[in-house]
């Protein structure tokens, strides 16, 4: 790895941070109508709470598909930077997606995983990351060379800036706590889709 930002911190050495705070830090760095796909549950609740950008897509269902949906957006619009936000439990449902992203190799895609080691929204039952699974190791094994743990908030922000350079695909895993989300997304699926399309297609809601 040539870029020093992609240091090999281990999961154990990574600081446990707050998902709402990190989401706000991410959104604050988005200046060019970057697309963000927020995965099911608290992940998209916090994306909503960080400000309802037109280029945000909030997933009310289809657990595990934040990265595939973001990959589709990235393939359709290679000049737009795209972020997928996903929880550890969700990603565990669709690990094959990491291999697909590596195969397609989109420079403009970053996958950010909030790893709190739990299915927080259903009662905080533990996920496999709390005991034996290292998602960064899996991402690397899937062929995503630019994969790393965020060791603290400053490093997370530096990793977002690295992703914004468009030299991806980038995979960022951040350990997070069990604090509740900062808000709740309005549950109107078609409105979410329409707004997102208008946000990335110059006001059009059909393609």
């Amino acid at each position, binding site marked *: 790895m040539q870029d020093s930002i992609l240091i090999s911190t281990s999961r154990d050495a990574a600081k446990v941070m707050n998902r709402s705070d990190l989401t706000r830090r991410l959104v604050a760095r988005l200046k060019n109508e970057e*697309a963000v796909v927020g995965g099911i549950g608290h992940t998209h609740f916090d994306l909503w709470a960080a400000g309802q950008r037109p280029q945000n897509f909030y997933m009310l269902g289809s657990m595990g598909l934040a990265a595939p949906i973001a990959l*589709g957006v990235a393939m*359709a619009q290679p000049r737009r930077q795209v972020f997928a936000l996903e929880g550890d439990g969700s990603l565990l449902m669709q690990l094959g997606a990491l291999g697909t992203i590596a195969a397609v190799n989109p420079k403009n895609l970053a996958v950010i995983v909030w790893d709190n080691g739990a299915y927080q929204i259903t009662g905080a039952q533990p996920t496999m990351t709390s005991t034996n699974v290292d998602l960064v190791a899996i991402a690397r094994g899937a062929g995503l060379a630019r994969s790393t743990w965020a060791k603290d908030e400053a490093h997370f922000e530096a990793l977002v800036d690295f992703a914004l350079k468009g030299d991806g695909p980038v995979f960022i895993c951040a350990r997070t706590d069990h604090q509740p989300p900062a808000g709740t997304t309005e549950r109107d*699926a078609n409105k979410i*889709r329409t707004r*997102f399309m208008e946000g990335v297609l110059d006001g059009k809601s059909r393609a």
Partner: protein
Amino acid sequence: MAEEMAGRAGESWDEIVVRVLKGNEVKLVAYVPDKVLAPLIKRMQADSWFTVISPAREEEAVGIVTGAYMAGLRGIVLMQTSGFTTLANVLASLTVPCQIPLLMMISERGTIGDHQLGQAIVCRTMRPILETLGIEHFAIQRPEDVEFVTDRMIKQAYSTQAAAAMILSPLLTSRGKKSY
């Protein structure tokens, strides 16, 4: 695009499908392998018009094609019956409520002579899923219907913002063959 709807003389079903997809600006193809679909997949891979990818699961393919559609790139998911039947959750929680004109082409396995027990049982769950979700579907049986049905179903999907399941019956794809 030519107006004739009966297909051109000597064209195979997969040649017609390629022509119809091009006529409707469908460029992204996400497939999960199937023996019946193999000639179509091979034809698309050899044609630079298409971007062809092979995700690990059908559900993932639906996610990719949905994201691409929302960002302006039309696509289609190719799969066999057993793969389709893994999709109830994503269809019910993403495709239908978000009004995504998801194009699906499904090779129908498990019926009219398929020796695979698993395919046969799972096949019987396909239409109940489609009907419960209110998804337009049609099984194409005759070569002369391929162009008319696929072109019309694709156009209807985009004009009504609703998914379409184009089912390829063994009557279309396996007639004259001894087995699947």
